[in-house]
């Protein structure tokens, strides 16, 4: 079989030579390796990321906590068509549709909207099929991690946890994800 790397060594159970039985060469070899790491860490600093202060950037393909987007005027994009719920292989999405009333035009973009929109985060497998199914570009998976909790009930995320804020600073940027999705749907010729 061809090896994947050229680092593999064939194990031989032969008698050790005197030099090998002294163990000291092997000991010094090992100590040289740790010393190299020690000196490297002293000069260049460690390889680790100091997590709470320093965060690793997410890859564009990262799929985390969903967001329900608003349009430029702050109206919810979702029209409660139910395609996401149909596409969901884990059946994590449920919604209740309602008709937009007079005077609610600044809240909902379409005439029909989702009065209730729930994603069960315990069921969700973060596959991203909902965003591909969405015709209104309303739902996206973001690079936020769904936090842990003690109670199952708290994992059913309603609209208050899914819809982004109206204020410009509360909007959630999904441009990276959007770009990735368009590239994926229309592969470069």
């Amino acid at each position, binding site marked *: 079989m061809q090896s994947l790397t050229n680092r593999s060594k064939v194990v031989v159970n032969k008698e050790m030579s005197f030099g090998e039985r002294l163990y000291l060469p092997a*000991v010094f070899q*090992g*100590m040289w*390796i*740790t*010393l190299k*790491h*020690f000196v*490297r*860490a*002293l000069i260049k600093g*460690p*390889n*680790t990321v*100091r997590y709470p202060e320093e965060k690793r950037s997410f890859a564009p393909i990262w799929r985390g906590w969903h967001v329900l987007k608003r349009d430029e005027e702050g109206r919810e994009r979702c029209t409660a068509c139910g395609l996401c719920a149909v596409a969901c292989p884990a059946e994590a999405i449920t919604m209740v549709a309602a008709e937009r009333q007079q005077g609610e035009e600044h809240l909902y973009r379409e005439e029909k909207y989702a009065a209730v929109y729930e994603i069960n985060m315990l069921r969700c497998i973060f596959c991203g099929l909902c965003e591909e199914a969405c015709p209104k570009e309303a739902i996206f998976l973001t690079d936020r991690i769904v936090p842990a909790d003690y109670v199952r009930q708290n994992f059913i995320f309603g609209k208050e946890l899914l819809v982004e804020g109206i204020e410009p600073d509360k909007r959630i940027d999904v441009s990276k994800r959007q770009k990735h999705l368009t590239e994926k749907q229309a592969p470069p010729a």
Partner: protein
Amino acid sequence: MFLLFTTALLLEKSILVLALFTVTLGVAAYATLAERKVAAAMQDRVGPNRTGPFGLLQPIADGVKFFMKEDFMPNSAERWLYILAPGAFMFVACMTSAVIPWGTELTLFGRPVALQVADLNIGILYILGFTSLGVYGVMVGGWASNNKYSLYSAIRASAQMISYELAMGLALIAVVMLTGTLSLREMAEQQAGLNWNVWYQPLGFLIFFVCALAECNRAPFDMAECETELIGGYHTEYSSMKLGFFLFAEYINMFIACAVIAVVYFGGYNFPGLDPSWLGGLMGLVVMLAKTFFFIFVFMWIRWTLPRFRYDQLMQLGWKTLVPLAMVNMLLTGTFVLVFES
């Protein structure tokens, strides 16, 4: 006049003992931090950095934590021996530092002050004696906990200590033959400049170093407390400050062992250009501590490099390699002394 002299001597020694005690405890406390930092650096990590700048308050936080924890005692433990063991371990560890010469004589307030608590004419034997007592803390603690892992650990520790003490003593005999003295101060004085014993006793030094590792229960010889097999060994059942005493005393032991190595083989406070002035004496103290810290680093370096020995390998190394080698070393040294000194 005589009374004044004795009072001054008593005061001087008390201050010295107090200072030595503080320094020993301080070094042991910060050795715990240093160990974690060294380990981190060798594994490309950061190590403790949450308490204070660079984690410098970590030992204090650890100490506070140890004091605040619940002091749990197993129901089936042998009550008095269980309490006695950590104290005995700590006491023995602290006692050994008394005979180590930390520097030359300084002249303070017009009288010579030796930086050594007691210049016993049998200093090296005193250290051997007290290290051999160190095992009682482990044994009694392990037995009194009434736990099978602790008992295993106690048995291992005792066998290991006895085996390695033998090779250690034989390695030291060669040095004693060479220097003709058992006093650590005289040994240090003989190694003026760079005339260190290690140049004459490279094999002896290697044997002594390995045995020191084993006597301190340090990796790769930490058979008595190997976490993976004996889940902590003799201190499995200990908690709170009793556990703290055990762990702390181990670092004190390491500090003292490194100081002994520095004095016996690496000239102690000697360095080329040591002058008898006040400043020179202080420099000697610094050099002595630097050598000690270097060996503490080597101890840690070894711990984070080498895997633990298996128990039978440990005994093989001790009895079939180190003891015969030490005997050969002793014979060679004897011949050397005979040929060159007559």
